[in-house]
């Protein structure tokens, strides 16, 4: 009984603690935002792991899909619920913002999933290095397209998301952003976990290890690739939407290849094909980034250096293709996570 619900219990306690600390302002705004970025990074790294780790492809354009999600969610939110210079008066009663927010974030995810088709279709015929180049191209296409849309701010970016958050807080005063980030992070990890542990999702693994054998043994590889790319980019879109609302400001420049690299570093740090690795690496990396903040631009020398050292001495990452339960089998007695 305890084993069955221990994960639920821990997550509820953790969520409750964060909300409690945020509500009574025991946690400063800074710490709170670091925590929220941790959640977003968990979403991003675990969703990229789906493609780079589980499917064995090499996507370097993850930030592009994040960008789609961020923009769709922001534009929808601001247009519907906030008073804004660009979009004018809110279209709907701001009281509904609270209920509509998850739908808006999910809509961003759906849009990003559709953008994922940009990579999914070429993946039928190409793979490896060639597909990697296509993902970079997709990243650039998305950013350039948004930079050239002056109606949503172009390269200057888009603001006004704070208005939506204020509308939510007006309806009911709670620290809504931490709550939503927390819930969506759990949602994303949960979806990925269930996908990759099903026989259906193990087709992804089969493609990674031997695509020819997969196709011969009745795995519809094109279908699996489409679903996996769409899921991966869709979850990145959710992450992007949350990212936009946390910052309250988005511009296309922040979703360039550097951001994609950052996500990739987290995946490789955690270990390919290890969901718990991606989560741990995202937490660790977010903290590392904050600790190195005083170094300013030098941190972009230190972090790649960490990557080089990692690849030299532990190329499989922290967890290396295994989950927490496989490394510490005793842990399995205490939890069951599905």
């Amino acid at each position, binding site marked *: 009984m305890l084993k069955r619900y221990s994960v639920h219990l821990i997550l509820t306690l953790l969520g409750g603690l964060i909300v409690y600390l945020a509500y009574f302002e025991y946690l400063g705004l800074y710490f709170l935002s670091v925590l929220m970025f941790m959640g977003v990074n968990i979403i991003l790294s675990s969703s990229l792991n789906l493609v780079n780790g589980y499917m064995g492809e090499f996507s370097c354009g993850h930030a592009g899909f994040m960008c789609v999600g961020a923009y769709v969610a922001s534009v929808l939110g601001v247009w519907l619920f906030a008073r804004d210079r660009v979009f004018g008066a809110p279209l709907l009663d701001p009281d509904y913002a609270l209920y509509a927010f998850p739908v808006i974030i999910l809509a961003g995810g759906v849009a990003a999933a559709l953008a994922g088709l940009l990579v999914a279709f070429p993946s039928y015929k190409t793979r490896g290095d060639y597909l990697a180049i296509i993902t970079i191209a997709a990243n650039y296409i998305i950013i350039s397209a948004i930079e050239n849309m002056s109606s949503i701010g172009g390269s200057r970016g888009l603001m006004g998301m704070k208005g939506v958050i204020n509308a939510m807080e007006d309806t009911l005063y709670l620290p809504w952003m931490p709550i939503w980030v927390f819930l969506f992070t759990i949602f994303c990890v949960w*979806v990925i976990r*269930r*996908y990759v542990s*099903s*026989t*259906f*999702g*193990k*087709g992804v*693994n*089969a493609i990674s*290890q*031997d695509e*020819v*054998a*997969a*196709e*011969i*043994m*009745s*795995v*519809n*590889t*094109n279908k699996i690739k489409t*679903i996996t790319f769409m*899921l991966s980019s869709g979850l990145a879109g959710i992450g992007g939407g949350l990212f936009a609302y946390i910052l309250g400001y988005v511009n296309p420049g922040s979703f360039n290849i550097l951001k994609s690299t950052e996500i990739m570093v987290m995946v490789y740090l955690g270990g390919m094909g290890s969901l718990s690795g991606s989560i741990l690496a995202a937490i660790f990396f977010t903290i590392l980034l904050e600790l190195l903040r005083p170094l300013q631009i030098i941190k972009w020398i230190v972090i790649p250096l960490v990557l080089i050292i990692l690849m030299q001495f532990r190329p499989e990452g922290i967890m290396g*293709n295994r989950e927490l339960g496989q490394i510490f089998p005793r842990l399995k007695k205490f939890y069951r996570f*599905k």
Partner: protein
Amino acid sequence: MQPQPQTEPVPVLEIRGLTQNFGGLRAVSDFNVELGKNQLTGLIGPNGAGKTTVFNLVSGFYQPSEGMIQVGGVPTAELKPHKISALGVARTFQNIRLWNDMSVMDNIRVAQHYRLGYGFFHSAVRSKRYRRREEEITREATELLDIFELKKYADEYPRNLPYGTQRKLEIARALSIHPKLLLLDEPAAGLNSSDIRELIRLIRWIHGQFDVTIWMIEHHMDVMMELCTHIKVIDFGQTIAEGVPDEIRNHPAVITAYLGDDKI
């Protein structure tokens, strides 16, 4: 099986006038074959004769340049490999192609994709259908591993198994899709003589136990002579001989193809 009505039985595999060109090279030329239910037939020929190309055409890797292929009366030339395997064509490979970083159990389970009966949505919400199907798949996979005496390796990774066992697992995986036609591409390659005895026993046992037509490529003549009731010989894509093993053994065209003729 129920008794068939009074019609001509549909051959498990029918190939007519199959030709495959790779650029200027004619790898297979006007190849014909008809395999009935429960036959055990062989395909031999010197290296580069086009044997594996025929198998690749049947399993759908290439679109044939000319000719037709029918599996149980269904033309397959336009179909993707996974659709063809769902029609009941399974195969093994010359160089073993298992999923090496997935457990033996998962190797069998993933091969059930053609009749999974649920998709992404069901796997995400863990619906009743999902749970029922996963249970059935796991049960059937366990049974299959059991009869192949591989159950003790269920959680092992294939790459850690001895070579002969990997061969056996690949055949077990092929059989897990309940094929009507099983293509074995050089199953004895890389096996030592005691493994080969074991393999002959295994193939004979499969042929008796499962309701399956077996078509195999093999270089070990003793394996072919012992197992097959009918052998076809090709060279440079052309069929040069066919018949029962004893006829093949002494067929002049076959001897010439393998050893060359004495005119210099």
